[in-house]
């Protein structure tokens, strides 16, 4: 028999889905684990049923029945009855398993860390309500202490989005006018990629975020650093950059605490350079990427709500230099 290379290769490709990066098959927290077990349970039960049906079908096709018409009728009745009972049992069992899992993953937690996540086209605003200090507002990056449950309060500003970190929890929609809650725990420190999982417009595919779980001490240090105002400009170029930022339309939409910029329509940039990526996971956080993004955001991410603000080359250099220092 000649093997066909293409379908076999396609099957091999599917195995790539089992890798750990943004995968529900590599659970790193109790919620994701419960869902993973449910998934495996369903696959096992349904695969067993499928095999059983195929075996019965094969036997039925090969065997010629020599029963009388009355006996054949009786046999058919028994077969249909058995199948009905088995179906009801299987569906009831799977429904119960599903229900129990839902109960487990939607149960609250004792003394969780509260994080508010607001989804906008096409980025995530992350707020840590003040615990002995001002609120911390950041974007597209959710730092959490490993091992401690986190209560994520979800809201949406414009259209329906969906919050999904496959390694840590299932999906939860963010719906304008309705507040949803998701509780998740990261068992160990690590970086877990998340992604909007509900089509939300032109740049839905570029609406990623990162959950970074750290040891509790590192998280506390990060939080304290984020509560501080932005650093003062280090040199003349940075000072000019800050001045441009305040005078041009930048400051009308972005907040940089410690400056005149107090806009609330775009992400808070007070500690922009402490984040790993720019524009919801699109670009690495470098001075060059910052300049490219500011120079022409509509070519990098067409349709996003950051306009192309006309700047001279010197202004662009200075603004990106200053932003790159906001650690």
């Amino acid at each position: 028999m000649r093997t066909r290379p293409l379908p076999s290769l396609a099957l091999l490709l599917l195995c790539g889905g089992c890798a750990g990066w943004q995968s529900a098959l590599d659970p790193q927290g109790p919620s994701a684990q419960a869902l993973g077990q449910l998934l495996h349970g369903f696959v096992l039960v349904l695969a067993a049923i499928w095999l059983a049906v195929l075996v019965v079908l094969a036997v039925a096709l090969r065997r010629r029945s020599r029963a009388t018409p009355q006996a054949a009728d009786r046999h058919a009745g028994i077969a249909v009855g058995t199948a009905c009972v088995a179906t009801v049992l299987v569906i009831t069992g799977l429904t119960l398993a599903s229900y129990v899992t839902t109960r487990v993953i939607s149960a609250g937690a004792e003394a969780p860390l509260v994080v508010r996540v607001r989804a906008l086209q096409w980025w995530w605003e992350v707020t840590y309500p003040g615990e002995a200090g001002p609120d911390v507002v950041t974007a597209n990056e959710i730092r959490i202490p490993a091992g401690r449950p986190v209560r994520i309060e979800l809201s949406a500003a414009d259209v329906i989005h969906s919050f999904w970190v496959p390694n840590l929890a299932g999906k939860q929609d963010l719906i304008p006018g309705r507040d949803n809650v998701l509780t998740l725990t990261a068992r160990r420190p690590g970086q877990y990629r998340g992604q909007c999982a509900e089509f939300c417009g032109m740049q839905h595919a570029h609406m990623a975020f990162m959950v970074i779980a750290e040891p509790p001490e590192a998280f506390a240090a990060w939080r304290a650093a984020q509560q501080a105002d932005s650093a003062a400009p280090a040199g003349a170029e940075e000072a000019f950059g800050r001045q441009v930022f305040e005078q041009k339309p930048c400051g009308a939409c972005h907040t940089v605490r410690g400056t005149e910029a107090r806009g609330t329509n775009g992400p808070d940039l007070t500690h922009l350079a402490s984040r790993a990526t720019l524009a919801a996971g699109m670009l690495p956080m470098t001075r060059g990427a910052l300049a490219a993004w500011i120079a022409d955001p509509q070519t990098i991410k067409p349709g996003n709500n950051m306009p192309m603000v006309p700047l001279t080359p010197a202004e662009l250099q200075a603004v990106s230099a200053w932003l790159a220092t906001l650690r």
Partner: protein
Amino acid sequence: MDRVGGWKDGVVLAVVLPALVLLGGCRLEDRETRPDPPVAQALGQVALMPNGIGGSPPEVYAALGRPYRESAFHLSQGKRLYEWFGCQACHADGQGGSGPSLIDGWWNYGPDLPTLYTTIHDGRPGGMPAFRDRMTRDQIWQLAAYVQAMGAYTGSLAAPGRSDRPQTRPAENRLPAASAPLR
């Protein structure tokens, strides 16, 4: 090779062709999200009458095909900007408050787009602030077109997106005001 029977031609005519026709409805409105820098620059060249009321739009506006008032995308962006830049603080949802109403048909400086653009760009005496340092020219055109659409007395095929909040005033894509009186 299949023999092509008459009934197959019938199937093609009855099913495939209508489906193809329906596909035509999937066309997305062209969204101009990035005006070329020289175009964006030229969008500021509004020529007003000496009294600051009425005038002509920049030549590039006609060259672009008068996009802002006739594109649902630009009107939706204008609606977003109306909320983002705090217009509601003085004009409410168009009914007016400490600022004048935008839907009562009375325009202190005229309802044409060049005038609305200039009003937003430069401000007006009596409390209307200038937004030239806070918005790009493209954004000001979008907002001006939205404000004009809000109080328009003629119907239009282009309308901004629907609000999720309860309506406090007729929707922008209502019939012209003559058949749906405003209060």
